[in-house]
């Protein structure tokens, strides 16, 4: 690129507008393309989770705050919303269902104000541990106060309340989907706008160098506290939408397992870019709804995938996309076709081998009632025969060998390209 322009630190502007248009269109048009009721369920959940993961990333990716207790704010927002809905059904007061998520948001913000005061006293690893403690505190309390939390069974509601407004009852799933989609759009836009405000930018500064942020006049604890409150607000909105969608909220909604899932998928999507958590939300729902049907070992696969991501691509899928986009921007992508093909080929072999082994073990362990055979990639495998196991082991071994060579080759080419790009930037010769 020799037109004298500086390399932009953030992705190209044309690309950004295109992404937004694509996002809006996708939200509005998806249920018309995928019309089955399963698809609608998936889309509705994705819409809610986009808000959750984006709000989580306000803390993690933007402010450097690793929380193990985010489900608390989503869940308490959900509980508040469901109680309000039940109160409206009983006629205590009137509130349109469309605005119930706002109640959730206020609840989320309120609890962030309450707990955040204590949790933001520390930062870094200690902060993470404290959020874990608070998360456990709330989760354990949920079984102690059945009046609010509904005990083991949770609290249920009916989202069809009163007479329809403009023909909308929120009975059919499609109506709920569009409610979620509109909230999702509003929240996403709001959270994006936040990144362009003084507080949003200082949150980045506090993430990068909290000490320096203090020395330019900012109380870093205050910055984190305010970010947490705003993130809690959006988390609560998502909780409210979830309450409307599922019509049930239980102590599971505030559990540590949930918090861990929010962390896992936001991280997988990518914490370094605004759209990363959106990818994470999509993977989240697809894993829980689709992957869990394909194999019993899906949680194990998820865990391994996460581990590999942290080790090899800590910026998540978003970073992988952007790194390749950057290479393409510098017009060096052509050299990567062959290395990618090599890694892909070796990866497929390794994947087949490892997943076969895991599936065989799972089948052997958990499904012995169903007999010893299972279908594996089109083949019929028998866990009682040695040849089956031997095949799986051999394929895995071959995969490991191939992967070692392929990855070394890839690293060499990739590393060379990165060094060239680095030099170009350093010398300002973009």
């Amino acid at each position, binding site marked *: 690129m020799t037109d004298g322009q500086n390399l932009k630190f953030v992705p190209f502007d044309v690309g950004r507008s295109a992404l937004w248009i694509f996002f809006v269109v996708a939200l509005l048009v998806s249920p018309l393309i995928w019309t089955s009721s399963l698809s609608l369920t998936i889309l509705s959940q994705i819409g809610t989770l986009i808000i959750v993961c984006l709000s989580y990333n306000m803390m993690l990716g933007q402010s450097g705050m690793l929380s193990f207790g985010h489900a608390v704010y989503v869940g308490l927002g959900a509980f508040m919303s469901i109680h309000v809905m039940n109160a409206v059904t009983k006629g205590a007061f009137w509130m349109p269902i469309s605005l119930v998520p706002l109640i959730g948001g206020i609840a989320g913000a309120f609890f962030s104000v309450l707990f955040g005061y204590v949790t933001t006293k520390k930062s*870094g690893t200690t902060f993470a*541990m404290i959020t874990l403690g608070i998360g456990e505190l709330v989760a354990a309390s949920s079984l102690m106060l059945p009046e609010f939390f509904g005990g083991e069974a949770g609290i249920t509601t009916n989202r069809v309340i009163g007479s329809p407004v403009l023909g909308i009852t929120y009975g059919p799933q499609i109506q709920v989907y569009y409610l979620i989609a509109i909230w999702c759009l509003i929240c996403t836009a709001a959270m994006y706008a936040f990144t362009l405000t003084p507080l949003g930018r200082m949150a980045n500064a506090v993430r990068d160098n909290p000490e320096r942020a203090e020395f330019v006049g900012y109380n870093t604890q205050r910055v984190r506290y305010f970010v947490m409150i705003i993130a809690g607000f959006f988390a609560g909105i998502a909780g409210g939408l979830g309450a409307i969608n599922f019509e049930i909220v239980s102590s599971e909604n505030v559990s*540590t397992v949930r918090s861990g899932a929010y962390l896992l998928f936001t991280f997988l999507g990518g914490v370094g870019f605004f759209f990363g958590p959106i990818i994470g939300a999509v993977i989240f729902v697809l894993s829980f709804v689709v992957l869990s049907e394909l194999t019993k070992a899906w949680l194990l696969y998820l*865990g391994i995938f996460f581990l590999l991501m942290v080790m090899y691509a800590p910026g998540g899928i978003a970073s992988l996309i952007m790194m390749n986009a950057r290479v393409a921007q510098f017009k060096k992508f052509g050299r990567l076709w062959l290395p990618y093909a090599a890694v892909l080929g070796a990866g497929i072999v390794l994947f087949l081998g490892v997943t076969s082994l895991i599936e065989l073990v799972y089948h052997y362990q958990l499904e012995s009632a169903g007999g010893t055979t299972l279908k594996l990639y089109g083949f019929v495998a028998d866990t009682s025969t040695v040849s089956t196991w031997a095949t799986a082991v051999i394929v895995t071994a071959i995969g490991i060998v191939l992967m070692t060579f392929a990855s070394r080759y890839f690293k060499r080419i990739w590393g060379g390209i990165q060094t060239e790009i680095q030099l170009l930037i350093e010398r300002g010769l973009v």
Partner: protein
Amino acid sequence: MEFFLISLLNGVSYGLLLFMLSSGLTLIFSMMGVLNFAHASFYMLGAYIAYQISVWVGFWPALFIAPVVVGVAGALFERYSLRRVHKFGHVPELLVTFGLSYVVGEFVQLIWGRAPVDYRIPAGLDGALFTIYTTTFPAYRGFMMLVAVLMLLGVYLLFTRTRVGLVIQGALSHPDMVEALGHNVPRVFMMVFGGGCALAGLAGVIGGNAFVTEPGMALTVGSIIFVVVVVGGMGSLAGAFIASLLIGILQTFAVALDYSLLTLFAKGGATIGPDNALYPVLKLTISQVAPILPYLLLVLILIFRPRGLMGKRDD
């Protein structure tokens, strides 16, 4: 009186178990700055491996073999996974141990299933150690305390009397200097990580049959040891010791007490009925509230003494 003594002893034995776990965690944190989220998972692994070995061979071999296996697993993880993430910073380090805890949890279910396994106290240790009035103090609890104390003694001696221990102490605060002196600090890190995990595994061996051995055990004890570490003061072994005993005794006593604020009011002559707004909270007995006591302690410490009981001023 007997209730008090027995509960105290039970509380101390539980507290010592917590300390076995949190000491390994503190050591790893002090040296490497890594908070090992998977620490409780190694505890669980120790319990399961001990179970398996005790089924094949017996409890006593398990007592010695299982911690070694867990320690080796920990060392391998450090060498091939954690080390690689070190350059990304502390958050990715925590995340990689978080991912490991996920994987270990699933792995354990893969091999041993989702139901609790029947990991038994060996016949020789099953029974009463002594009796106070009508309450017996189990022999196994006494054994747990013995193992915990021996382990702590062993670690203390290792650190202060051996050369390896000296190197570790040095690397604890000045890894670069120790490396400049010619010691293989990455290997020391690996050993310390593996050692910490082995301690967790040992805790699992003796705790797994006293309490239940099931896939959820890592989660339940995991968050408590993090509370111990924060309450005690990040990186302070003495603080972890005090906090472990405190929480161990607190919880043991609380679980046995059936009083609530309601009974307190009743003693004072006031009766509060179910229609009172605060009734749901007031009727909670201490035993019902017991699970959240460690976390309440955490909140109190953070409000009144954020650096923990024995923590250093700057975190």
